[in-house]
């Protein structure tokens, strides 16, 4: 009891400290920026000091001008800038080309004006007047030009670091469809989307999150289609985030999602520009984070996680079949082990006699109850799977040998598990791989154990109770205010055309109603009505 109170006190104290710290932080933010000094040496000194003399900061002082009296300095971060640009263009300009400008400079205007108006190459040049901004630009890959005698500097965009080239996405693969995927660079990613949607309505807003990392985050949406309320909600939630750093969408997702205590993902993520673009056209908001190839898409619906972008590139009938198949696989992955436990330990009368006999024959001599047996196998499988993901690629084949031969065959031969259980676990595993979105697939993995527990205690009755609980939970979920189960609950007739099945493209003239609430009717394309062959013949002749 006493301990509890003490603990609570400690917590309270900590909270107070945090508050104070926050106030300090806000003080820091609000304090007036230090302006650049007119003395170039002092500026250089301050920058060096503030950055702790870091090894990757390069500062080069030089004398220019006809008389060589004018001192300037360029600072850049080695590795973040394109060295060619800095050396071949900027330094060359400053040392060589500037002379001509000097000769022509009859008005004797200030050096900074000269630079700004005449000589500095480079597309994106901004004036900097305070130290903080120049340090920030310096660390983002810009080159800072400081001039002696003036309290104005220039920040030249010279970003150019080694980055992965655009490759085929490793998740969400398709047989037919675009093979390009997002990369780690934010600019490339927005360009990939921009290349798909050339409309002026594609608006990109950029903010920075992470007090230390200052990660660039782009918010993409289609102006006019997006629901303003949802957009505002996304922005408010993003602005609320106060963390040290964001390295992947996953950590940002946890900070802005609607419901934490749920196994189901309420924000969609994609590695595919085409998927991001089509989501934009449906009125969703896409959040691209610098440094990760996974873009977040909000709001997300449950059905979305069982759809693949290829559904729209294959024929409608095949796509519908595959979608239904995925729903079946979803249910199988969720319920097969638990149903097996329920039927074999509680409802043997549900099986045909011959099937019962073969199952019973398999189980003769197996020492554990069906539940323990299933739990054992499922856990072993999960371990194998995790090992397979984390292991160095080179020894990957060892896992399959150990897994398949030793654990599968030998366990059966040794009489520890029955053959049927191996089949059950395999079907479950294969079914869970069918779910196209990894974050839903892992939700199923977790829920499977919950259902197994229910089946072992209450049989089929338990499974039904579990399913009811799951559906109630799903209906209670919201993704940025949009019901997670829509268009099933609340039911929407138009939405059915593109959820469990996909109708032909010409029938899909509406956007998801719950998402693009204001403007949900698209331009309508009439169904193709080919002229009959007689007419075509006539035209030819």
């Amino acid at each position, binding site marked *: 009891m006493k301990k509890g109170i003490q603990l609570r006190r400690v917590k309270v104290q900590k909270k107070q400290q945090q508050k104070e710290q926050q106030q300090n932080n806000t003080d820091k933010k609000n304090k007036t920026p230090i302006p650049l000094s007119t003395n170039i040496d002092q500026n250089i000194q301050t920058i060096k000091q503030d950055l702790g003399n870091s090894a990757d900061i390069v500062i080069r002082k030089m004398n220019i001008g006809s008389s060589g009296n004018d001192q300037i300095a360029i600072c850049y971060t080695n590795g973040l800038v394109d060295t060619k640009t800095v050396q071949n263009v900027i330094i060359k300009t400053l040392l060589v080309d500037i002379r001509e400008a000097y000769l022509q400079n009859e008005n004797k205007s200030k050096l900074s004006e000269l630079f700004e108006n005449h000589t500095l190459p480079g597309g994106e040049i901004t004036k900097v007047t305070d130290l903080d901004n120049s340090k920030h630009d310096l660390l983002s890959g810009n080159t800072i030009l400081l001039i002696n005698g003036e309290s104005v500097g220039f920040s030249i965009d010279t970003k150019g670091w080694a980055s992965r080239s655009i490759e085929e996405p490793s998740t969400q693969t398709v047989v037919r469809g675009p093979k390009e995927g997002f990369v780690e660079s934010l600019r490339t990613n927005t360009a990939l989307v921009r290349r798909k949607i050339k409309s002026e309505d594609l608006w990109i807003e950029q903010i920075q999150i992470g007090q230390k990392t200052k990660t660039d985050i782009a918010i993409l949406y289609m102006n006019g289609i997006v629901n303003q309320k949802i957009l505002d909600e996304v922005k408010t939630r993003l602005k609320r985030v106060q963390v040290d750093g964001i390295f992947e969408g996953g950590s940002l997702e946890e900070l802005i999602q609607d419901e934490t*205590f749920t196994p189901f993902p309420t924000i969609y993520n994609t590695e595919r520009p085409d998927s991001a673009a089509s989501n934009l056209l449906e009125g969703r908001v896409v959040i691209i984070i610098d440094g990760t190839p996974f873009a977040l898409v909000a709001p997300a619906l449950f059905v979305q996680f069982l759809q693949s972008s290829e559904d729209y590139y294959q024929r409608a009938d095949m796509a519908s079949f595959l979608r239904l198949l995925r729903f079946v696989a979803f249910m199988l992955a969720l319920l097969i082990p638990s149903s097996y436990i329920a039927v*074999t*330990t*509680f409802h*043997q*009368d549900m099986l045909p*006699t*011959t099937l*019962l*006999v*073969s*199952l*019973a*024959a*398999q*189980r*003769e*001599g*197996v020492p554990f*109850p*069906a539940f323990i047996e299933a739990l054992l196998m499922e856990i072993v499988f999960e371990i194998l799977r995790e090992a397979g993901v984390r292991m160095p690629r080179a020894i990957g084949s060892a896992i399959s040998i150990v897994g398949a031969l030793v654990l599968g065959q030998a366990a059966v031969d040794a009489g520890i598990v029955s053959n049927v259980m191996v089949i059950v676990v395999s079907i479950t595993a294969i079914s869970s791989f069918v779910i196209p979105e990894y974050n839903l697939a892992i939700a199923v993995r977790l829920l499977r154990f*919950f259902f197994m*527990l*229910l089946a*072992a*205690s*209450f*049989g089929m009755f338990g499974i039904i109770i579990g399913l009811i609980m799951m559906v109630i939970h799903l209906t209670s979920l919201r993704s940025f205010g949009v019901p997670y189960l829509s268009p099933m609950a609340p039911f929407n007739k138009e939405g059915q055309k593109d959820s469990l099945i996909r109708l032909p493209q010409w029938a899909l003239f509406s956007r998801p109603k719950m998402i693009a609430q204001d403007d949900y009717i698209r331009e309508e394309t009439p169904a193709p009505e080919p002229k009959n062959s007689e007419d075509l013949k006539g035209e030819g002749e």
Partner: protein
Amino acid sequence: MRKKLVLILFFLVLLPVLSGCWDKKELNELAILTGLAIDQAEEGYRVTAQILNPAEIAGEAQTNRVAVSTYEATGDSLFEAIRKITDSSPRKLYLAHLRIVVLGKQLAEQGIEDTLDFLSRDHEVRTDFFLLVSEEKDASSILKVLTPIDKIPTNKLYQSIESSQKNWAPTLGVKLDQLISTLISEGNNPVLTGVYIEGDTEFGGSLQNVERIPSPSLLKLQNLAAFKGDKLVGWLTESESKAYNYLTDNVTNTVAVQSCTGGNVTIEINNSATDIKVVEENGQPKVKVTLTSEAAIGEVQCENQFLDERTINELEASFAKKKEKMSLDTIETAKKWQTDIFGFGEKIYQQKPKLWQRVKENWDEEGFVNLEVDVKAEFNIKRTGTIGESFQSDGED
């Protein structure tokens, strides 16, 4: 919120401990019972249970043990006797997969109603098993015969009932719910198919029985046992059993044979419909039965038999005549036993309920025995098989 969640998780973990899986039964804890034979004992019942040995039927390493074994117990009531079997059986009997119940001849003669109570009351037992009457003195011996092809003898019986009912008319598969509904309805009496062992009963229970072609002892279904109320009163012959099935509209497919000059002609009946009409004549009921059958010629051995329209009409007429006679004979037999197994009384009740109120008193003994039944059979031979004329008739003389 977090507190609530922790509580919920805590309770979930407790669930399996609390419930203790009280009615869980692992597959290898079950004695799967597929056949039950019930005999009259001096006091109460003698029950024989046929239990499967799953490892022997579907296991990987099969030994030369038998696929089924039987356990016996005697008790004052059926339930008691079944529970008593646990004395000798290694596991508790699991009744949901019961396929066949064989009733002893003696028991059937004494009355079966008391026996059926347990079978319809117990929650484990389903109603989709067939009931048979043993023609042997002892029903238990039926369950002690190994069968070739199907390792589970009761499964063999179950399937031969189904197939013989479909393709050969003189048997009838009666399930528990059917039997009970016939028993409780007015103006109807049940029948059950009989079963007996053909051949040497000595080898029946040993593996030797299935090591030979042909098996020394075989389980056979034959003929129908007629009940009056719940008591066995007599056995119908094969042709009577078939006629019974015609009259009660249970025939789906069968064959009929008629002699002709030089041999026999056989037809396959593909479709048979029975129409029973009740009319009132002088205040007494009269039943008019119309049997219509569709048939195809299956085998012809006759001399000079040309299959033209005239001969086919003649054939139709002769088959119809035979069938009418067969039916009337069967009705006569039932009248002799004073039991309305055809359910004529029920038909009267359905069609003329007021008349039924007048005649239902002592229906089996008086009404049925004096009932006038008109049987009219119609045959319609539609096909002659893949050949028209028999090639034999051409070559002769």
